[in-house]
């Protein structure tokens, strides 16, 4: 092979951001999978609606609007520090990454706490009827996402303080923020179905 023509890639950068990275495509795959789960759960909700004459069945009161709406605001507001953390990651700026990831975690603590009140004000238990089951399933699915997102963001944040901080961790910070966007935006249709479908149907 000696003397063969070559394509020298040694000068290429050892990493990248955004859709150029493998991590982005991996994250996108997870978003597609989990987005499909949410979409199917919403589909199941309306299938059950179509099979029963009154909704919610048996004269159950719709979930209280207060806590769900409050949490929607908190979740949307968390997108601001989330975006700032994402940009700090892209800038490979450790100081800013630390600040904005901690702010994100404070938001995550807040919306996880408010979520407990949401469960308490659904006005139905999961074992009452299928309406209760599907409402608890949808809220439970989303709660799993905000708990796991809180946990993995915590691990990443701790790592950014303790080190060793490898350069590719800044790509992780960026991708963590991309996933956070998904978790917040996926909430909007779930919120609409849980809180508004029983009122508008």
């Amino acid at each position, binding site marked *: *092979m*000696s003397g*063969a*023509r*070559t*394509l*020298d*890639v*040694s*000068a*290429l*950068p*050892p*990493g*990248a*951001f*955004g*859709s*150029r*990275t*493998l991590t982005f*495509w*991996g994250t996108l*795959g*997870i978003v*597609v*999978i989990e987005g*499909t*789960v949410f979409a*199917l*759960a919403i589909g*199941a909700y309306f*299938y*059950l609606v179509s*099979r*029963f004459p009154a909704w919610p*069945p048996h004269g159950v009161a719709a979930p209280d609007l207060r806590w769900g709406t409050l949490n929607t605001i908190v979740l949307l507001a968390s997108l601001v520090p989330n975006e700032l953390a994402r940009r700090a990651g892209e800038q*490979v700026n*450790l100081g800013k990454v630390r600040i904005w990831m901690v702010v994100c975690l404070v938001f995550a603590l807040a919306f996880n706490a408010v979520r407990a009140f949401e469960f308490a004000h659904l006005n139905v238990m*999961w*074992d009452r*009827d*299928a*309406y*209760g*089951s599907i409402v*608890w*399933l949808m809220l439970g699915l989303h709660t799993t996402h905000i708990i796991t997102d809180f*946990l*993995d963001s915590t*691990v990443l944040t701790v*790592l950014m303080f303790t*080190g*060793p*901080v*490898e*350069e*590719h*961790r*800044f790509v992780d910070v960026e991708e963590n923020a991309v996933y956070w966007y998904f978790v917040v935006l996926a909430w909007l249709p779930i919120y609409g179905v849980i809180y508004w479908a029983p009122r508008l149907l």
Partner: protein
Amino acid sequence: MIERRDRPIGEDLQQLEQTWADPQGLAGWFTHVDHKSIGRRYLVTAFAFFVMGGVLAALMRLQLSRPDNTILGPDLYNQIFTTHGTTMMFLFAVPVMQGLGIYFVPLMVGARGIAFPRLVAFSYWMLLFGGIFLYVSFLAGAGPDVGWFSYPPLAESLYTPSRRADVWAQLITFTEVASLAVAVSLITTALKLRAPGMTLNRIPIFVWAQVVTSFMVLFAMPAVMLASTSLILDRLVGTHFFDVEHAGDALLWQHLFWFFGHPEVYIIFIPGTGLVSTIVTAFSQRRMFGYLAAVLSLVSTAFMGFGLWVHHMFATGLPQLGESFFTAASIIIAIPTGTQIFCWIATLWSGRLMVKTPMLWILGFFAIFIAGGLTGVMLAAVPLNTQVHDTFFVVAHFHYVLIGGAVFPLFAAFYYWYPKITGRLLSERLGVWVFGLLFVGFNLTFFPMHILGLHGMPRRVYTYPAAMGWGALNLLASVGAIFMACAVAIFIIDSIRALAANRVAAPNPWNAGTLEWATSSPPPHSNFLHLPTVSGREPLWENPPEQPVVVGLRTDARDVLVTHVLDAEPDHRLLFPAPSIWPFLTAIAATVLFIWSIFTPWGVIYGAVPVFVTMVGWFWPKSAQEGGTRLWPLQRSLPRPNEAPAAGGAI
């Protein structure tokens, strides 16, 4: 930044091989991340499950071989047919195709490895533990007995108070976690790790088939996971998803299940068509006729595959408009498949056909799959569908489609790629015997089932009275099963014998054109000592002699070249992770959680703690042993977000 220049390649190939080698020894075995190692395990494990599922099938044929037989009782028979179906769908068909993808997609796109190698290793352990869980349950008398689609209300606690339905539902979780992980890895590998020059229209059709299948997995598997989770919740904590008395609906299960279950057929069949295209091309010694039409057929089959699940539910009394829609959809999907068949015929017709063992299986595929496709078009019609619903006609149909559409191409692939994986050739003479026995045995077993079904013999009955007159055809079917068992036994013996024999395969024994044949057999740890670039769809046939090779990747770390999605221009380099025990430990923790949660909902809460701990261990930096990653705050080496992609000279 990138230029083509003439210069000797002075890279340290010995160091390169050491870098990419996974550790030896028993302890090292649990840390492997090499896609070739994991791919081999997938293939061997899935084949072992194929044999176990086959043994169960043989037991059923033994029981049905004569009327009023008493070898198996109804309870055991129920467990056997459920475990057989569940094994073949979830532990054999999907994993074996994904195993081929894990092994061959990186080689066919000219990459040093698979994307997310630790995730792929994790997926293997999940598949293995799920399968062991099913068979331990079966041997303990707790094998699922509610059919491979586990319909409520039969699967609800009221009618199945034992744990059997939970075993089925949790097996789903194991296998779907595994196949989703593989799907994400294969898509990313095919989109981002292709050799420079491998633009979208030069991707081998087998890789296209794997990508299309993986996308189907992403959209289909969540449906069955949601369904099986809801079933477990109904059984464990008293929800009422499928309970009509509490505003639930049993048909909700069928919709969710078949929204997965019909695409599942194509998830098994599309990789099979990819194999057919690959082997037809190689054995015709010409480029695939109608490459674009064939790829678009795969994509359109995938889309349509999601639009006909309701034809599994024609007997449930749907609105007539719905029935008409799904009948039309079920017939239309024959068009892209027909397009592919015409492309293969044209390729064979205009090429220089070599008939060797792999090609025999492809010819067998044509005969059997087309027969299965014809009964599929028949079943799309509501009146016939209702008439033969739940009869042996349906059993005959889907075995013709699945064994014809997937198992025959799979055996073709075994014969075609065995020399690549092992460096040895299988016996041509025994190969003809294996093919002949399986082809004849298959048709003896399953063709009579069409007639039995038309005569009204229902599925899933453990016996039948002599007065029904079904004895002769059933005996014929059982004799066919003996032929099939002999074929598989000869194949196993030959494939073990060939490992020890010294019929060493030439590097490219079939003179094929795709990149997996551009490296030694078996491939070196780094896949390609000199990373290839390509300038055509069949690089080994079409690359000019001066086609450049890639240089400049590190040899002291697992450095890979990442390229652009559309045109495969070089973009950046990336360090791949080293071997690790954490995927194995995480799989153990997840297994504990899954099994624990069958018995109490607290299993999910407490079981999540070890899962979290092992995942943190997986994620946590391993400092020096990762092989020279750059620590902050060195001078920035990552590109700025708005910097133009670094790609320079086109190939």
